[in-house]
């Protein structure tokens, strides 16, 4: 695994974020077929996954680790409310800290180490240059609250869901790179409440089925799914709180700049039962790729075009694509025609 230098890539301002050829190759392209279909695409997070893939380990880390943790720190400094833990979720926060330290140290031993004797623990994060002795479960032995401490060292957003009355509640989390939703707004909401704005799926009974399945997840049986949307520029923090900074970007897209500026945004969502608190960890690992890079893979290019052509209007609106989707389609069609021509040239040559 190669890591970019910490301040090399920015997810704001000049947007210096860039994917290496390796990152493009392992990008989680989310469409299994040419037509867009709504489905409960949840499957067991069977470990170890395919070597080198984003699901090889319990928690995926890639070349953007340093840049993303720096971005997270920047967002938290400007808006501390992005991290929230209701009092009854304190044990879940500790559960999560132990979970991250255990899996990071196990799966990336060159970058992290975690030693413990009973509750006396020692943690090293070589990538961020952090070292900490603490007592598991004792808030006073960490420089900040447990979720705040470990969340800043995690690549990807974190929600900790409390389970009660056969439902899940958004009662804790650290959300700094959301695709247009807000932890402060959703805090305390039930599963069906925070999915309220999603069109079509309620009528199809998808949430009802998914909730039943998620509530039955037990220790040792994690699951994952992919979710997607699009974002203008490689902007991790597209939250409602900062809408004024990014909302107008949607108006800047033309068939000429779509390849550079429009990014497919794919979330690897992982659901893991925390052993002590029984909270459900909902991890959202976000991968960004611009269409230029995505379409270096001709299979992905033609499938994306077909999928976008079959998106229901309600979903185009919900995903915020209405304004610039025609430009994206035109860009893809032009490119598809160009690739087709060059392939024909090759064949005739």
């Amino acid at each position: 695994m190669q890591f970019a230098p910490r301040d090399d890539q920015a997810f704001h301002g000049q947007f210096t974020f860039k994917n290496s050829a390796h990152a493009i190759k392992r990008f989680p392209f989310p469409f299994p077929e040419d037509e867009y279909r709504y489905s409960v695409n949840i499957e067991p997070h069977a470990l170890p996954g395919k070597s080198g893939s984003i699901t090889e380990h319990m928690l995926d880390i890639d070349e953007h680790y340093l840049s993303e943790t720096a971005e997270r720190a920047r967002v938290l400094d400007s808006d501390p409310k992005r991290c929230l833990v209701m009092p009854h979720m304190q044990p879940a926060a500790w559960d999560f800290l132990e979970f991250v330290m255990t899996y990071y140290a196990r799966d990336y031993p060159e970058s992290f180490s975690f030693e413990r004797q009973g509750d006396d623990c020692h943690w090293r994060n070589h990538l961020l240059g952090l070292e900490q002795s603490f007592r598991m479960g004792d808030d006073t032995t960490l420089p900040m609250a447990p979720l705040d401490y470990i969340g800043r060292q995690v690549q990807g957003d974190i929600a900790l869901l409390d389970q009660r009355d056969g439902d899940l509640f958004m009662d804790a989390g650290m959300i700094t790179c959301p695709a247009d939703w807000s932890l402060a707004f959703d805090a305390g909401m039930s599963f069906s409440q925070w999915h309220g704005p999603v069109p079509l799926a309620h009528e199809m009974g998808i949430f009802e089925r998914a909730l039943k399945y998620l509530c039955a997840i037990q220790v040792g049986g994690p699951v994952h799914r992919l979710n997607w949307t699009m974002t203008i520029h490689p902007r991790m923090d597209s939250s409602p709180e900062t809408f004024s900074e990014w909302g107008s970007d949607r108006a800047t897209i033309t068939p000429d700049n779509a390849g550079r500026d429009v990014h497919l945004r794919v979330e690897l969502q992982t659901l893991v039962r925390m052993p002590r608190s029984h909270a459900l960890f909902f991890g959202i690992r976000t991968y960004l790729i611009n269409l230029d890079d995505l379409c270096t893979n001709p299979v992905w290019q033609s499938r994306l075009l077909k999928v976008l052509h079959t998106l229901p209007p309600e979903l185009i609106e919900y995903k915020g694509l209405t304004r610039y989707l025609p430009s994206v389609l035109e860009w893809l069609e032009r490119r598809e025609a160009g690739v087709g021509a060059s392939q024909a040239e090759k064949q005739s040559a």
Partner: protein
Amino acid sequence: MSRFMKARIAAVGQISTTVRRLTLVPAESGQSFTPFSPGSHIVLGIPGEGRTCRNAYSLISAPDDSSQYCIAVRRQPLSRGGSEAIHSRIKVGDVLEMSAPANLFLPQWQARHHLMLAGGIGITPFLSYLPELERRGASWELHLRSQDLDAVRFPEAAAHVASGGITQYRLERPNLAALLSRQPAGTHVYICGPQGMIDAVHAAAAALHWSSARVHHEVFAAPAPGMPFTAVARNSGVEVAVEADESLLEALERSGVETTSLCRGGVCGQCRVELLDGEAEHRDAFLNDQERASQRCIMPCVSRARSASLVLDL
């Protein structure tokens, strides 16, 4: 059942003439179990004559102790083999299959007061509640009704009997109406015991206009085995015997029949297959009532057969 691990019996103790206490440790030295949440249970595989009996048992030890798990097993008069084997054959040093802890009986942490009602061996899930309730400084009381089981004989409970946190009943029954009516608002009640007791508490709570969301009883996620049956994959020309404790999907995979699947929990719809003959016992959350009634499709990841065989379009 997936996610089985090996556990070794480290100690056997007698709580009463009919209840044994087992201490389980990881079969391999240097390993540790996962910590668990209060109210969790494990499924233990107990080898018997010709088959393994899989029973669910509440963990009674402290949830944060990952060095060992303890369970208490009552000798059932009409044992399917499991409890009888534990009382007569299982000994220190034996290695058994054990599932990871699962929990369908969590404390409701927002409760202002926790009222636990146990009938006999039903005290077991509450024994793992107590250390966590104490740790969080929660308000609680536990009532145990049993003719022959003395809570003080559980090391996990002894101190609480002495301090009055646990009230015991021998021949008499607790007066449920009186008990519930003196509870502060915001009390949650938890019941583990015989069905009659569960029903009586629900009825008493309803009579006092308690919301049903404040009344909880133990449900085990025992692996839901069923009757063995035969599956015929007509197009593949394969006939496979589906054992009582494996899924139809697993049996098909075992015999090399190509299937698609995703969630393996009856929600995603990927493994849906046409049913050509036979009667399905639907256990999924995907098919609607009409599809179920039509008996023309089945979700093999969770559903089984009511008939001796199922013929599938595979």
